[in-house]
């Protein structure tokens, strides 16, 4: 009797149905990505002959062809400039504002805080028509500035939300002592607050990184000139160009997804925490 109970407990501890469900879902998740990569390594004949199999004689020709596009590295450089530039500004301006909002106890500060936070709930796409006109008036269409400015504005609410909470919860004696000693406000920000909020800064950076790198909407609307196109915008054009040559499209898509994918696989914990941050706490 006792033995029977422990063996049934052991059986239930193995969670067989749970494993089956998760394995099936993982296969569903991975199969399209497997097809994406494996078919980018085949030539056209092999793709149509055996679309679901492994590439038996893998070739990098599709990649070299895609990279031979004269602007290819330009697109990547543009995307990197936009991502790095906007993330830096979001973190800098966001942390400065959060530092102020965490300490300033005036009514104005509270109102400003809520003014920022509302922005987390409202998708910036709603503003597109006016933004397009604004960029036209400021002569920023077809420049990376148009994207940078919009992404910074879009990233600030979550940055301020996460960072203000974080700074408010820092142990106060840490900087009270420095303040009493006569350290200046900026010195406290720079040498005490910034080092302490690093984990929160990482969360905010990741939260914004993925949507900015993956954004198609604003490049599509603001950018038409080749030299300032981002990777994703270029892909929409190139996939039409190679339309009939599928292995090249697969290679192109693989390359544009690769940077974020590698980042994710090397720090998946931070990614999950970052990408679900606004939602769990908000």
């Amino acid at each position, binding site marked *: 009797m006792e033995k029977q109970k422990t063996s049934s407990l052991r059986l239930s*501890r193995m*969670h067989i149905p749970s*494993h089956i*469900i*998760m394995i099936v879902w993982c296969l*569903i*998740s991975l199969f*399209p*990505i497997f097809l994406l990569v494996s078919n980018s390594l085949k030539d056209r004949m092999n793709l*149509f002959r055996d*679309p*679901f199999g492994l590439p038996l004689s893998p070739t990098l020709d599709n990649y070299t062809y895609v990279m031979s596009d004269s602007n290819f590295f330009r697109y990547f450089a543009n995307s990197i400039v936009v991502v790095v530039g906007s993330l830096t500004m979001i973190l800098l301006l966001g942390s*400065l*504002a959060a*530092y*102020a909002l965490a300490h*300033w*106890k005036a009514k104005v*500060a509270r109102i400003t805080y809520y003014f920022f936070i509302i*922005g987390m*709930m*409202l*998708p*910036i*796409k*709603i*503003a*597109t*028509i006016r*933004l*397009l006109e604004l960029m*036209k*008036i400021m002569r920023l269409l077809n420049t990376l500035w148009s994207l940078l*400015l919009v992404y*910074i*504005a879009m990233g600030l609410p979550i940055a*301020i939300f996460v960072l203000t909470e974080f700074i*408010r*919860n820092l142990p*106060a004696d840490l900087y009270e002592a420095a303040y009493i000693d006569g350290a200046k*406000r900026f010195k*406290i920000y720079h040498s005490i607050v910034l080092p302490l909020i690093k984990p929160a800064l990482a969360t905010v950076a990741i939260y914004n990184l993925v949507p900015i790198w*993956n954004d*198609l*909407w604003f490049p599509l609307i603001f950018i038409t000139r080749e030299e300032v196109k981002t990777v994703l915008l270029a*892909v*929409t054009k190139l996939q039409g160009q190679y339309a009939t040559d*599928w292995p090249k*499209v697969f290679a192109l*898509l693989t390359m*544009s997804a690769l940077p974020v*994918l590698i*980042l994710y696989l090397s720090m*998946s914990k931070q990614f*999950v925490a970052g*990408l679900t941050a606004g*939602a*769990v*706490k*908000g």
Partner: protein
Amino acid sequence: MQKTKQPVLRGGGSINPGGRYWIWYLLPALVLYTLFMAYPMLDSIRISFYEGTTSARTYVGFQNYINLFTDEVYSKRFWNAFGNTWIFFAFHMLLQNVLGMLFAVILTNRTMKGRPFYQTITFLPVTIAVMVTGYLFKMLLNPQFGGYALKDMGLNFLVHPWLGDANTALSVVSLVSVWQWVGIPTMMFVAGLQGVSEDVLEAADIEGCNGWQTFRYIKLPIIMPVVGMIAILTFVNNFNAFDIVYTMTGPDGQPSYATDLIGTLFYRYGIAGEHPVGIPTPGIGAAISTSVFLMLLAGVIPTLRATQGKE
């Protein structure tokens, strides 16, 4: 919305709480946010009462809304896209979020092995650009891609122009989107369920609760606020979905507007211009975005009230 848990050191620990000088720390963020987000958002509402573009704008009152909701040409497209978006939303609520909850319950089972691996894989598609997903599936679903191979395997029923058939296109686009985003509700539910105390679960086990009862009466009430958040997030994202349709079935939501969503309709009317004329009508576009805005408010506020408990 936020927890009102009062940290011990809070309040007393502020440096110079009354200082006006703080404004200089606030200003750069405030200016950028106001100029490039808050102002254009609010001003879109104003534009919805005007006709024409920046240079020549005339006030037309509610005419854009009247056109959008009742005019023969505009309203036909609008109500079509509106209905499609609700179907798209239903797929995400009923499939994506239910799957997410199921996976989260499995993945918070402390005695189960291999959870980190499953989590990493389930979340992986979230990091891929919607555009990449869209183009990828557009090819994979094309009968030219796997048609012969599938026939050889005797899987003839899978060979079908899924995206070309108006009866299946919207469902297929929705399913692809669900495939991509399941990781988000999964991880949010995982975070919520980790707050359920082990003691309570053990007590339930001793009392003889089965898995379903434990879920229904213990876990679900605890994660209700998360359910509300996910519902809101899904709602907001779905009424802004654009990339997936743009890449899989084009900006017109082909075939014959079967996959046209509010997001693509907004793009055509407000920004790119409707085929075949190709001249955008910002007023109509702004009326669409304002309607969405009001709908989001109308949907979001009651959901927050119902699920977030008392402030």
